[in-house]
């Protein structure tokens, strides 16, 4: 939208600002005076020439107080926006039509818009002040999850802290939850969810898992032993920009939202942007592709933040990266069929983890290396982790196997999280008892 040239009644405010101001003043009026705008519309009229413009100005005279110009008649090239009360719609439209003035309906019903705005404002005030009423069996948006993170870290500040490890491309904070029983720096375990934004079950599982850890600490002997010796780090929303986009515009968005001059397609596949076999098979150099690897390794702030954090820490012993869907538990490599040096150990550990998972709800997972189980993929998280010396690097693909795919019903969140937890716990326990 262009700024107002000469003719605006409020110099310095863009038409968008002016509109917002008007909307807010309406809300106030509605709140205070119970005004009702049901059925009122905002029409956008395109005047072809000065003659048509003056016809519009005449309208103001003909129907004083009945037509409210949000963007007044200024020049023929500029659209004219006017609010028309429901009772006047028929007359006004007849006037426009009879004079050959083309118009479109910008807002079909102002009251609806006002109600939505009011609801949104009330909602943001209502944002939960504690985690006790947060529903673990529902999908949440970014604001709700970030609010939950704040509350959660505060409520369990004895073992949980929130760390800001960087910012996304669109400048959203990248947050990590640290679970620690204190002491000087312990060896650590990393878990990330949501690297692909459309995989909603992963964020939901991560949140449930975080809560499970604080609930079971002190009660589950295995978890308690793990936390006494090691720290756990969980990054719940690894791709915050993509995640926000799945709520606002495109539920099936996978990549981040980075834009580069010269390319028209948006986003890099964050699970192809790591420095391990970067650019190889199973990644794509076409920026419009869902597996576009980006211009160079770690080019994406979301990936760079993690690399920086894990490298600076220097003592991560296990890394678990969670995706959906396919029901698989896998270890490196993705970039080639070459087996890793401790392949047999990882095979057996995966087998145990999958068995523990199965025993919860009977869900069947297959397991193996990424390249042989799923497909060849280069520049992926777990390959980088393994090459960086993290011996226990695993990738999950959660439920289901294609029936609902990414659109997994919320009723499956808790069962999925419960079974996945048993697999994660198995991996963590092995990491603890096989110190290196």
């Amino acid at each position: 939208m262009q700024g107002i040239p000469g003719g605006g009644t409020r110099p310095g405010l863009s038409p968008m600002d002016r509109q917002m101001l008007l909307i807010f003043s309406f809300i106030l009026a509605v709140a205070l005076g119970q005004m009702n705008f049901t059925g009122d519309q905002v029409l956008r009229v395109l005047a072809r020439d000065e003659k048509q413009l003056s016809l519009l100005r005449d309208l103001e005279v003909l129907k004083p107080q009945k037509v409210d110009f949000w963007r007044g008649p200024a020049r023929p090239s500029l659209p004219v926006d006017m609010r028309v009360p429901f009772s006047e719609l028929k007359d006004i439209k007849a006037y426009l039509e009879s004079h050959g003035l083309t118009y479109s309906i910008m807002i079909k019903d102002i009251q609806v818009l006002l109600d939505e705005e009011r609801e949104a404002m009330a909602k943001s005030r209502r944002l939960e002040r504690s985690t006790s009423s947060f529903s673990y069996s529902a999908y949440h948006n970014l604001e709700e999850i970030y609010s939950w993170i704040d509350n959660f870290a505060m409520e369990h500040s004895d073992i949980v802290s929130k760390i800001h490890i960087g910012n996304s491309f669109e400048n959203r904070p990248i947050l990590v939850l640290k679970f620690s029983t204190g002491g000087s720096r312990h060896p650590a375990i990393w878990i990330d969810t949501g690297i692909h934004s459309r995989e909603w079950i992963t964020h939901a599982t991560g949140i449930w898992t975080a809560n499970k850890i604080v609930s079971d600490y002190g009660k589950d002997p295995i978890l308690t032993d793990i936390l006494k010796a090691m720290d756990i780090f969980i990054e719940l929303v690894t791709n915050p920009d993509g995640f926000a986009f799945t709520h606002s515009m495109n539920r099936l968005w996978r990549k981040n939202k980075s834009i580069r001059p010269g390319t028209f397609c948006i986003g890099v596949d964050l699970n192809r942007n790591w420095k391990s076999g970067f650019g190889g098979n199973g990644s794509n150099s076409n920026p419009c592709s869902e597996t576009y690897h980006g211009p160079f390794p770690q080019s994406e702030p979301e990936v760079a933040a993690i690399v920086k954090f894990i490298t600076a820490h220097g003592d991560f012993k296990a890394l678990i990266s969670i995706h959906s869907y396919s029901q698989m538990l896998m270890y490196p490599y993705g970039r080639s069929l070459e087996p890793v040096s401790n392949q047999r150990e990882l095979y057996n550990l995966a087998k145990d983890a999958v068995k523990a998972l199965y025993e919860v709800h009977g869900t069947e997972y297959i397991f193996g290396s990424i390249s042989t189980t799923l497909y060849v993929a280069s520049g992926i998280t777990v390959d980088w982790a393994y090459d960086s010396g993290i011996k226990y690097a695993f990738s999950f693909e959660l439920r289901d196997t294609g029936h609902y795919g990414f659109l997994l019903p919320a009723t499956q969140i808790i069962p999925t999280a419960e079974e996945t937890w048993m697999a994660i716990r198995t991996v963590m326990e092995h990491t603890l008892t096989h110190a290196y």
Partner: protein
Amino acid sequence: MQPRRPPPPIPGSGPWGPRPVAPLIALLLLLAPVVAAAESESAEHPGQPQDAGLQRRLLQQAARAALHFFNFRAGSPSALRVLAQVQKGRAWINPKEGYKVDVVFSTERYNPESLLQEGEEHLGKCSARVFFKNQKPRPAVNVTCTRFIEKKKRQQEDYLLYKQMKQLKNPLEIVSIPDNHGHIDPSLRPIWDLAFLGSSYVMWEMTTQFSRYYLVQLTSVRQWKTNDDTIDFDYTVLLHELSTQEIIPCRIHLVWYPGKPLKVKYHCQELQTPEEASGTEEGSAVAPTELSNF
């Protein structure tokens, strides 16, 4: 969807039949330069897990292609089947021509919420021969399945579904099924099943030895005409291709009536190249409300 049987967890290879005997080996050697035998692979010998994994994938591809074709040919939205488990199979790879796969697999009802019919087996069993012609579309499929539901009963079910469809208020206003949270309104389930049936034809044609498709969402209904002898359904779906992770919008137009063979026409959108991209916010993987090149 929960598995109802308690088999042991599946390692990279899966529970398969016994190893081939000598005469068969001779036969296999005769047939192709490279033979990939995919028989039993015990969990205690992960020695060649790479081979086992690749074999398993190939057999699954074949089973899926066969099942898409089977669903299409049966033309029955009330009797759709999905893959449960690959049981055994064998593949012949001819680098010049393609991949020939024999596979035996079990199936489950697509709609797990629906009640089992009297006399219907919970698990059906199919055997198929599938020929993937070096990444060309339309794999040749020869498939037979045990009779899950008697044909007459199936037609009765379909006719009930057809009557339900005729009652639908205004399907043209549908936004998406399932919604973004995975929910399908029970009253709209018949539309979804019919959409899945049409999509089966598309997915069969597009499946190759490497690409695998899933139906994600019905995103718009352009036309829904219920006449006395047909349902004319013009709609758009999103398919998910697993190896490239692409979301592919497809416009499908089908004509269906219980007992009559299904007629399908379709057009799927190609992946954007950087030159063709329109420069909008949406970039790739967006379902357009209008397929401009249709």
